[in-house]
């Protein structure tokens, strides 16, 4: 990892890192059957670091940390039951665009991850050069269309 990225990585506090994992798992949790990993298991954090987005991330996480402190007097990552969800939802309602962007980034990372691609039943490879097999389909279905005769205007 490049040095400057390391510095940015370290700029998140432990509380913020815990909050980020919680947030990622709230958006995309692991599936009950264990087939699909949760978003916190994917390298999303590293992508955000590489894209120079830690300061932006820090901003949003701080809102959640502050909201938790204000409402419950403790860190959001240790809130029990559904309290942490309530906190995040409150912040989400206050900053809808921020959370829409964050969800967008998380989804982009998640659905390009080899583990996820494999889990949804696809081969982990680019489309080229092998391509895919497409069933021909039944062109006899056209018979009734053809029999109807011309429908265009001259």
């Amino acid at each position: 990892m490049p040095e400057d990225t390391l510095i940015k990585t370290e700029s998140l506090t432990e509380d913020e890192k815990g909050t980020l994992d919680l947030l990622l798992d709230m958006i995309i949790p692991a599936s009950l059957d264990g087939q699909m990993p949760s978003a916190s298991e994917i390298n999303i954090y590293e992508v955000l670091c590489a894209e120079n987005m830690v300061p932006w991330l820090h901003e949003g996480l701080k809102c959640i940390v502050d909201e938790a402190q204000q409402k419950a007097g403790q860190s959001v990552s240790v809130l029990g039951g559904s309290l942490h969800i309530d906190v995040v939802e409150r912040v989400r309602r206050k900053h809808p665009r921020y959370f829409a962007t964050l969800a967008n980034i998380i989804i982009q990372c998640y659905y390009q991850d080899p583990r996820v691609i494999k889990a949804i039943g696809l081969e982990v490879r680019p489309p080229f050069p092998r391509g895919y097999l497409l069933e021909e389909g039944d062109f006899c279905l056209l018979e009734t269309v053809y029999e109807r005769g011309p429908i265009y205007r001259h």
Partner: protein
Amino acid sequence: MTVNSPMELVDILIIGAGASGAAAAWGLSESNVRIMCLEQGDFMDPLNYPSTKLNWEVLRRHEFSFNPNIRKLAADYPINDKDSPIAIANFNGVGGSTILYSGHFPRFHPSDFKVKTLDGVADDWPISYTQLEPFFKLNDRMMGVSGLSGDPAYPPIDGMLPPVPLGKLGETIAKGFNKLGWHWWPAYSAIITRNYEGREKCINLGPCNTGCAQGAKSSVDITYWPHALRNGVILKARCRVREITVDAKGSATGAIYYDQNGTETFQRARIVILAANGIGTPRLLLNSRSDHFPNGLANRSGMVGRNLMLHPLGYVEGLFHENIESHIGPQGCCLSSMEFYETDASRDFVCGYTMQILRGAGPLETALAGVSRREIPWGPGHHDAFAARFGHAIGLAVIVEDLPEPDNCITLDTVLVDGHGIPAPKIRYRLSENSKRMLTHGLVMGKKVMTAAGSWKNMAFGPVRNAGWHLMGTARMGKDPKTSVVNEIGACHDVNNLFIVDSSIFVTSGAVNPVSTMQALSLYIVDQIKKKLPNLLQ
């Protein structure tokens, strides 16, 4: 300071190496004349296309986006489309927008050339389907087109390669159309389904509209250009034209452009052919002001930039319980329906629309669309909702015929400029009442066919913002110099040696993808030019 081009004088200068410019270059290349083409974008390397990479779905949202305002490559120019509900799409490179088009390749219908006569709206074209027919056929042969003869929605079309497979998705929706007794037909596709002219057949990479690494999609960088270059046409990439120049008599003398090093260069030419698309062409004309043409070149009619037509697009999606493998296959080429193409007096609109069936999205696009529409939630329901959609969705595009409206126009932005300081185009566009009614009808009918095919859930919306691929009408063709920019052979009324061959000269928009018709028109025009070459070159 402007320097002269090392090649002092060419007979024909073509501006733009996309669909129409490539056809024109090849069409003229056997005439023993010196031809040069200037293209602001670069040559393409198919091995860099997104489908060669695992993260192809991410790449299509950024450097291979069809929106130049997102892509922001050096070859791109910004487009101010804030005053339009539809954002402009294009691609700048050798091959132009055929690099990113889906390859859906239907022709205009005979009725599209005479809407004034048939429906009493807009204007008739000064040419007919019959006049273009041999050039449609020639263009199909040059490009490599797949489809099936016998379509009741068209006069006979033959000589095509076998159609793109329907797949489970196509078969499913075809049964829906049949249940309703509606027309459908396998897509006319600029995709080769058999090895053709040294190119290898389609292997269903899927994302045709990010560039085809296989070379099976017929983009003009691999169809027309190799032939034109072999015939001696000089193609200069990364050369952006700023203006077309005129002499004291008002005839075109060439063009000033910025070469690969940014040097301002003048290229002399006896004939200039514009092929810069429905946005780029009027932009260049409007930016070419002189004493002869203070309001822009060839604009004595005031029609340059007016009558922009964009094909407002509606989107319908149906979800099916069965896995119909909708993520596999060429995304834009499956089948289409012309059931509502022709005017029907019982409806509350004139003209009509095409229903183009789209194959489903990849996993990322499925997830992003589902989350943004709140159909795929955050949290525990996420995976089930995704699984219900991925591979289970059929898309349907309603392509609405857009009638010409003078107020829908392109002007030059007074603030926004490109990397060379050339003013950006500014779009002003509104949907007409006729288009709105047609769109509403199309969305309802789209849902109806999804239900007939067995969908458990439908959604529909329109106009889709990111769908301004079809750029037409901004330098219209006509016999009257007061109301049109070019005549029936593509020559500007005001400048006898300046021709336009792209879709800016369309009089009306039809309701199908325009590339096939645009290229046939380009071949028709250069055929007319060839007949007049001795006079034009004097």
